């Protein structure tokens, strides 16, 4: 009975956190889906989103959720810049080249971030209250983060399926050569896609900053979770990534009702391996 109560108390936390995991993973999986590039700078960009929220909140007093708008814009522009500088030239090269290119960007961001910000933990001291329902405590910051995630997911869906650039993105993801023949400016679309991916990463970082402490190295663990979620949800499937995030959040929180937190990575990556072996296309299917 005690375990059941613990499970009941932990599940809502896991679900709310899973939304944000899913948002982060959507960024990674979108880039993979469109251009077959694994963005190893995903983690530091999440961390930059965290710092963006921190500085906007502490220096200007801007509400962290309103601050997500400039963070999203900066994340988009940063992604376009990274694509143009580091990824475009190796987009048609073997995967290792793009992997190394994004890894280099990862190291540059971490190096600069460590030099400028050290690795001391930072906190966004923002409270949004909580709701207590018996053994369940629903934190305001997490509920708002889940809501924001749903808004961004909805916005992404509308963009991809109701806008011309979105159609172009899907066309390029499907068949770049054919899209080019149809007059789609594939280079610009690829840059935009990369920017959208980093935008989602930065926004997820901004949300995570409202509930956990962070440093420039903090994005690494979320990057790893994004890989697991990407495989879980289906590589290249952004909506699958959202559901994958929810599943991972639930697994993380419910496992800790029975085990110590040290077991969580074992379970997460065990799941990663099992999915790769049993259903490599993911639970919701990979990009076709």
């Amino acid at each position: 009975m005690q375990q059941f109560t613990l499970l009941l108390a932990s599940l809502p936390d896991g679900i709310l956190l899973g939304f944000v995991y899913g948002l982060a993973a959507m960024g990674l999986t979108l880039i993979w889906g469109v251009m077959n590039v694994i963005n190893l700078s995903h983690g530091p960009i999440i961390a930059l989103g965290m710092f963006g929220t921190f500085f906007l909140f502490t220096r200007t007093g801007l509400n962290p959720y309103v601050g997500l708008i400039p963070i999203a814009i900066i994340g988009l522009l940063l992604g376009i810049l990274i694509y143009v500088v580091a990824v475009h030239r190796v987009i048609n090269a073997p995967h290792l080249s793009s992997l190394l290119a994004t890894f280099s960007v990862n190291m540059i961001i971490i190096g600069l971030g460590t030099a400028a910000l050290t690795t001391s933990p930072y906190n966004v001291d923002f409270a949004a209250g909580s709701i207590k329902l018996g053994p369940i405590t629903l934190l305001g910051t997490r509920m708002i983060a889940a809501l924001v995630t749903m808004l961004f997911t909805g916005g992404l869906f509308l963009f991809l399926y109701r806008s011309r650039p979105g159609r172009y993105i899907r066309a390029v993801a499907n068949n770049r050569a054919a899209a080019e023949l149809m007059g789609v400016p594939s280079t610009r679309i690829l840059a935009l896609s990369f920017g959208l991916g980093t935008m989602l990463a930065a926004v997820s970082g901004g949300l995570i900053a409202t509930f956990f402490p962070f440093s420039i190295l903090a994005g690494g663990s979320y990057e790893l979770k994004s890989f697991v979620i990407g495989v879980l949800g289906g590589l290249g499937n952004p909506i699958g990534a959202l559901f994958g995030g929810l599943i991972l959040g639930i697994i993380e929180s419910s496992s800790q009702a029975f085990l110590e937190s040290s077991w969580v990575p074992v379970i997460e990556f065990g799941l990663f391996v099992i999915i790769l072996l049993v259903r490599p296309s993911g639970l919701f299917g990979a990009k076709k």
Partner: protein
Amino acid sequence: MKRSMFNILSVLILLGVVLSACAPAAEPTEAPPVAPAPTEAPADQPTTAPTEPAMVEETITIGFTSSLTGAQEVASKRQVNGFNLWMNQVNEAGGINLSDGTIVKFAAQTYDDESAKERVQELYTRLITEDNADFLISPYSSGLTAAASIIAEQNAKVMITIGAAEDDAYKTGNTSLFQLYTPGSLYLISTADMLKTLDPTATIAIVHENDKFSTSVVDGLRPYLQSQGFEIVLDEGYASDTTDFGPVINKIVDSGATVLMGGGHYPDGSTFARQLYERKTGLKMISLLVAPADSKFPELGDAALGVSTSSQWELAATHTEEEAAALGKEWFGPSGTEFADAYKAAYTDGPTYHAAGGYAGGLILQKAIMDADSVDPEKVKAALNAMDIVTFFGGTDFDTSAEAHGLQLTHVMVVAQWQKNDAGELVRKVIWPADVANAEPLYPIPAP
């Protein structure tokens, strides 16, 4: 294609050569510059009449690593600040005069260990073999010190360990380690004694970081709590990089615990405190290791209120010359107030126990050199083994048995708690032992 590849490679090689020529030579981390310290020297500096034979100045190199980056950054920097303050004061006062005419001054050789054990081992090896450090100071934290102590012992280098409370490092048959801090196994004993007077029926949740230090604290605490009749209703560890304490907080609430004891270091401890507050656990007492002793802790705001910690030193309960006299022991060094004033003048912030420990580590080495009247490592080691003194930091007396050489025997902890003063500001008060307390314990702590 081949020509363009050749061109690219040529450009890259040329760029590499140019960058190598332009790049500054790799330098060890300089000890951070310190604002000019007050000219007040540590007490008991021997002076020499000008008619003595010509003095020869000898610079002793103290080697250590500091965590300028990584998980231990906050506390490590304070420890290093304290140590540098001591070193600058001694040097500015003219150094230590030995009877053979030698004037001993000190220089620090230090590197950033990035809070990583692997770096600690390679850097301490470098300090010994390349930089020829005469004596060593430990890095901050038990985990890093355990790594450094192996190197120190292998090379028979005296190492004064500061910020390293875990007991096991001293039970390996060493002869060169000297622990300044109260051992980890005794860390929360004072808190348990205080709790016995406040609420002997309290039910305890022990939730701690899964690292050497925190585990050693809990290993010592657990049997003591049981011997005092307390019921431990939850006993769990968490990974050092944990940021989401929600699941374990749910367990604490579910267990029915009224008191929480544990934590680890600053990053996890401060996060834990914040999330305990957010989740309105209704705990009557929260006692966390390390984090609440740091001057950054009030940045948590109301989440810091009522949180207590075991502290190696607090200014409000600093040790005094009178205390030393009452114990029949020798007093050495400045008073706590003198140290705190000098520290504040140098660094703006008031000193934490990490800073005080850094300073006291230098003080102990100074005393040992003075007692040995030599910088010969074996003589200094003998002086350290024979030492039984009181400084502003507290008692210093090392276990000299083969089984536990270097373990600190006489230094005691105090319990401090964040409370609000009349102006509504968070201040850290000493609440135990009663004879040095400057405030009553806040029990139960205010509900959020």
